[in-house]
């Protein structure tokens, strides 16, 4: 069946969303037009405002419409610790799951030489400036445990060493509540080599 031009445009536009194909785009378009025109207008306004207004935080590269994101402008946070992550979603995950109260730096990707993603794309020059901050004591590298994440971690650690800042990398290993039998070999071998000494209760 042929749609009118406006409807076709809308369905095409919705397909840019992750996980949305032709069928779900149609469903969304019809739902908005049939039942929720106000919601559709709000969605359109919100999308436009966000796409035009949101840039990157000057200090950490997190999404932000202000020069500084809420985390960077929060005076209560600890300036002595900096956590380096690959994506904005990682900031949310870490902030929700850990008690980390330091600052973040978002690389917006990882070193991927085969795709031509290098220091410029990752904002390593900006990170270098952050590392020169006298208040900084520790860099926590939370890149993903992939070979690209490893390469990224190496260069970040190298920059930290050069600025005289201690660097650590988050541990990778067996998931909490997991069973060794079902853990893949790579993870298991990492977990094994990265084992920690157990302090006996005194």
């Amino acid at each position, binding site marked *: 069946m042929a749609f009118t031009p406006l409807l076709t445009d809308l369905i095409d536009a919705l397909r840019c969303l992750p996980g949305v194909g032709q069928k779900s785009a149609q469903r969304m378009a019809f739902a908005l037009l049939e039942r929720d025109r106000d919601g559709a207008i709000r969605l359109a306004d919100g999308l436009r405002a966000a796409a035009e207004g949101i840039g990157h935080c000057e200090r950490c590269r997190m999404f932000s419409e202000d020069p500084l994101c809420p985390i960077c402008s929060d005076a209560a946070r600890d300036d002595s610790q900096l956590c380096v992550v690959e994506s904005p979603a990682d900031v949310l995950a870490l902030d929700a799951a850990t008690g980390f109260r330091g600052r973040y730096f978002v690389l917006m990707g990882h070193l991927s*030489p085969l795709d031509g*993603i290098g220091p410029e794309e990752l904002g390593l020059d900006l990170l270098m400036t952050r590392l020169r901050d006298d208040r900084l004591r520790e860099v926590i590298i939370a890149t993903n445990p992939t070979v690209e994440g490893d390469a990224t971690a190496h260069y970040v650690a190298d920059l930290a060493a050069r600025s005289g800042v201690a660097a650590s990398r988050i541990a990778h290993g067996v998931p909490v509540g997991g069973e060794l039998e079902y853990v893949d070999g790579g993870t298991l071998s990492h977990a094994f080599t990265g084992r920690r000494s157990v302090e006996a209760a005194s």
Partner: protein
Amino acid sequence: MDAGQRIQLQPCWVLHRRDFRDSSQIIEVLSREHGRLGLVARGIKRPKSRLRGILQPFAPLLLSWVAGRELATMSGAEPGQGAPHHLRDTRLMSGFYINELILRLTHRFDPQPDVFDRYAHCLQRLSGDDPVAATLRDFELDLLDALGFAPNLTNDVVSGAPVEAGRAYDFVVDEGPHATQTGAGVEAVDGAVLLAMAARDWREPEVLRTARRLLGRAIDLQLDGKPLHTRRVLRDLRQRDYGTGAQ
């Protein structure tokens, strides 16, 4: 390979992965018996995917797939023989570099067991303590040789006479050494350096430096002027003096 044909548990290396649709990836692999191929790994980005941890570069794998016309569909993956190679620090960049060389210089569905074995050997050396530069030059020569693009290092192009140490040659990259001057813009190289390269004697730093340049140009020749991404990224890193040089 006919479309629909099922291939079981072939020794493979992952060269590169790129996202495909929402939860899948296209994995470029080098297989020993079937050459380089693109495998669609469905659902690999789902949180519960068990294959994600296995399908990493630099790890020996046994992969199964169903052949297609352009891309094959992966149907299974198991760790292969031996532990994954752990390339330390800047050696990882060398690993990316040789992966790109294979991606760019080999054709899909062109079985090259020799390239496969030499690649495995190179990874073995990179994961140990072998000097990186010599290891990479060996691999570049191996690869060019296996693909039939090996530069002529030993005989004068015009007379066919063996190259002599102590004599200066104009090295024309797609031909080889010229004992007589060929004109402007061609690099003059001492015969001793060419002979050392041919013998893979990397003890002299001068030989390594020249080899890097000449082999780089021999590789560029096969790439039709399209630059290698890894080389650009490495240069960007080195210009900033980040890391400690890998190539």
